[in-house]
């Protein structure tokens, strides 16, 4: 199950993030403070939820912010969504760490580079601005059946591939794929309805 008492919200303030991204691109150290103040807690919470070790989480969050700092020139301030990009990097670092620790080293640098490329995090603001994601996502997850909740949990917090989920849950791969697609469909629909409302 997802954790109870979920109170985090994505603070995706488009205009502020645009200014912040430009300052980061100008290599202003003060901008890094602002970036951390805006997303540090959320990034730490995401990483800690995955790795479940505070010291490791600190290292990975530091690595996340360094990666953003080093790759910010590829970010488009007017179109990019800084928060989702940073949080994707944070989660990827965490999942990668967990999988490395368990010797499931099947991800490569190329794949992570593609998955974290800033171009995948553009034009999100119009969809997510002023949207209370924490409330919506909690509500949406409640609408998933137990199997769907389970695969989303295994996916988000453990980064298990669908084949690994099939082995873990003792289900055919096709069934797992169906559950994953259905679960993501429900979440996407709920989020879409909230944005459209």
């Amino acid at each position, binding site marked *: 199950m997802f954790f109870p008492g979920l109170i985090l919200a994505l603070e995706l303030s488009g205009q502020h993030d645009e200014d912040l991204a430009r300052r980061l691109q100008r290599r202003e150290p003060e901008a890094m403070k602002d970036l951390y103040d805006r997303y540090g807690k959320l990034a730490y919470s995401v990483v800690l939820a995955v790795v479940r070790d505070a010291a490791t989480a600190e290292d990975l969050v530091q690595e996340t912010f360094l*990666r953003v700092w080093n790759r910010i020139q590829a970010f488009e301030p007017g179109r990019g969504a800084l928060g989702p990009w940073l949080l994707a990097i944070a989660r990827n670092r965490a999942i990668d760490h967990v999988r490395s620790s368990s010797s499931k080293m099947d991800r490569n640098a190329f794949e992570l580079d*593609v998955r974290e490329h800033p171009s995948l995090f553009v034009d999100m603001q119009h969809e997510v601005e002023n949207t209370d994601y924490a409330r919506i996502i909690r509500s949406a997850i409640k609408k998933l059946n137990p199997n769907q909740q389970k695969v989303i949990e295994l996916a988000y917090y453990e980064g298990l591939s669908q084949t690994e989920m099939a082995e873990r849950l003792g289900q055919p791969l096709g069934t797992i794929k169906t559950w994953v697609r259905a679960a993501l469909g429900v*979440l996407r629909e709920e989020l879409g309805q909230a944005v459209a409302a």
Partner: protein
Amino acid sequence: MTCEELRGDYGAWALGIADEPERSEIAAHLARECPACTAGVRSAMVTTAAMSGAVAENNPPKRLRRRIVSMVEREPKRGFAWLPWAISAALAIALVSIAIPGRRDTQAILAQQRDMAKLNQALSILNDPTARDVTFGDPAARGRVVVSPSGVVLIAAHLPKIQDNQTFELWLLPGSGDPKPAGTFRGETISNSSSAVYVYQGSTANAAAVAVTVEPEGGSPHPTTTPFIVSKL
């Protein structure tokens, strides 16, 4: 695979849980800027990003903010932009020195030839298209490590001070098993900061990370101190 065949897997890919061959196929479509797959994955990324809103809130320790901010406060204005220039300059100096051996003694020429060989090794690793390039930063040191199948180039600044009877030692960390020693080196003081460009030539097979420790002079077969650099590949 076609975009149509892949569209059902955009969500799984965005979450990082897609299986082969869809996983590689979508990555390949994105790498060649396929419009349909890029749009589909972007949309799926919104859902994935939103999931962070369902995570339990935890306050990071205050020191984490200091760690992160200190990484960039110490950054030289131009970062590592000096590196190609420095390598070129060093190479040029070595070439000029060798070209006019009458002005140098044999020892100096041999040293420069060693430097040149080292530079060639470094350039070979840096030019390897399969090399993995990872930056690292920590209160103790920051820099970059490039790892090809045949070697490692480590560029590090702000190295800790060590005694004359100590050395830095590079380690290759496999996914499981013991660290593999990859040679020792010392730093040089540049602009009041101890820095080093170290080249290790040897197989890096199975290396999942590199690390650097402070060891007794001559190095150790196993790390005897906590690494001050650990860079995952």
